[in-house]
């Protein structure tokens, strides 16, 4: 086993743990931000300004009783949350957190893997993620859960298409499916007269970016597209019957997905680790945080869509738009205007 592979393993472990930690505090930040937006205080009792609240929540969920409904499909019921939880952070493997650095004399790449189908890999893992929700909804032997599962299936398939197609424009311009390559291309500087612009794909693909953003929200089943779990209609949807740490798996998987997809968006559209001064992982973190804030902001602002509106948006609005975007990008590329 060579050193490169070993360093990849080590880095993967680091990323996984950082993600899990972030995810825990993501819940805290969300509650705080939402509270601020709704003119409340938010959690402030546990620890200083409520900083220990996530740990308290985690402990509570771990020690709660693990209920399995009598008529549930037991094996699948146990499998589903694991599936969700395991698949969610896997997609982060292809995200580059920077160039290689030297640690203890070893060259360490700041990414787990640079594969030439990284974008497709990300989409593939994303499409697998929905199995947890569908199977969870099915295995609960509960009408609401089943409906939630069904909704998740239809919604994710629909928005998966939009998500994938919105990335095609970027792929056409970059000519590569490797995220490392895409980031490298974006770190170039674009000079238009007196203007010095970063060659971020948000500038050349604004429409694709907006569509990606919408599809990403739907893909992670977040408000306003949280129909699979819509509390008011489906009393929790697919996780109605889950409790204790199995519920927390679903819960955490959602937040991990959010973080990962934010990282991905920052990498694809906002230049990843590229920044005005001193490129580095902090820029990526900052950009991802903007997305995460956007997620929370959206949840507090926009009411939930109706199901037909959700599907109509995907097939009648976003799909044509994204196809037009691909067409335009193709023409632009054809006429040699590739680099904005």
């Amino acid at each position, binding site marked *: 086993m060579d050193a490169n592979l070993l360093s990849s393993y080590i880095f993967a472990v680091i990323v996984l743990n950082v993600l899990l930690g972030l995810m825990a505090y993501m819940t805290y930040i969300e509650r705080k931000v939402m509270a601020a937006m709704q003119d409340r205080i938010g959690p402030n009792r546990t620890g200083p300004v409520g900083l220990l609240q996530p740990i308290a929540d985690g402990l509570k969920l771990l020690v709660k009783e693990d209920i399995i409904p009598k008529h549930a*499909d037991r*094996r*699948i019921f146990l*499998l589903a949350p694991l599936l969700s939880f395991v698949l969610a952070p896997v997609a982060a493997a292809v995200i580059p957190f920077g160039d290689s650095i030297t640690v203890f004399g070893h060259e360490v790449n700041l990414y787990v893997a640079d*594969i*030439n*189908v990284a974008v*497709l*890999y990300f*989409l*593939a893992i*994303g*499409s*697998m993620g*929905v*199995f947890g929700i*569908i*199977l969870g*909804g*099915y295995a609960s032997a509960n*009408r609401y859960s*089943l409906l939630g*599962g*069904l909704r998740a*299936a*239809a919604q*994710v*398939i629909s928005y*998966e298409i939009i998500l*994938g197609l919105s990335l095609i424009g970027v792929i056409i311009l970059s000519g590569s*499916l490797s995220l490392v390559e895409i980031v490298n291309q974006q770190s170039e500087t674009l000079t238009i007269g007196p203007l010095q612009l970063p060659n971020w794909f948000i500038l050349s693909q604004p429409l694709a970016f907006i569509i990606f953003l919408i599809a990403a929200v739907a893909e992670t089943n977040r408000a306003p597209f949280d129909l699979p779990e819509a509390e008011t209609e489906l009393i929790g949807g697919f996780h109605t019957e889950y409790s204790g740490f199995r519920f927390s798996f679903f819960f955490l998987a959602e937040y991990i997905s959010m973080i990962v997809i934010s990282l991905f968006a920052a990498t694809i559209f906002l230049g990843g680790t590229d920044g005005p001064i001193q490129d580095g992982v902090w820029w990526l973190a900052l950009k991802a945080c903007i997305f995460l804030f956007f997620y929370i902001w959206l949840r507090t602002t926009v009411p939930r869509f109706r199901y037909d509106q959700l599907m109509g948006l995907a097939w009648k609005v976003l799909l044509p738009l994204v196809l037009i975007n691909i067409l335009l990008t193709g023409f632009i590329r054809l006429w040699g205007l590739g680099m904005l």
Partner: protein
Amino acid sequence: MAAEVLIFNLLSAVAIVSAVAMITMRNPVHSAIALVLTFVNVAAIFIMLRAEFLAAVQIIVYTGAVLVLILFVLMLVNPDDLPEFHSGKPMQNVFGFGVGLILLAEISVAILTRTVVAEPGPWNEEGVAAAGGNIQVIGQLLYSGYVLPIQATALVLLAATIGALFLGRPDEDQEPSPKRRTVATISLAHTRGADDDLIPALRAANIKREAGDRDLIMARDADEFTTSAEEEEKKGQSE
């Protein structure tokens, strides 16, 4: 490299075992999960066979879309009482397995006795790497030599989409549409529309023509000639 063979064998074993599980599971949802496992292993095997793009497509299309759809339909068709039947007739099973075994035996013999006559092509590991990678090579080939098949495939997909929309549309109301009026009327108004001698006879008989071997003159509806004739008459009087 032995590790490669080991990994391949492992993946193959899991794929085959889960495939067998798929056809033996009583619950179709379990079957579907077993199939997911098979497909993921197949995708991994694709990577081993230097087909990274196909591996990704395999996951996205088969596991991500087709199987999700199958699960979707499974839940939709009979959510409460998914059929528990396995297979009806024992004879069917015996025959099925028998045929399968014979075919397997035949193919095994074919595989083991084969002799390779083909020459290796240009796309070995170095060739692909030199051309920029698996995806680049596939893209170049697809859009140079396979443009027509690509278009045809696009058409097939479009047709499938439309077909699915058609099949999946809500049932129409069961009440029959009102019957189209098939009763023909006879044009009395416009002499050009009928035999000259027909008109007085028609007027006399009110509806039916009297003797004669000739058919009645049919108009598609009562107003076909009437309006124009009235207009003409008015016009004639005014002049």
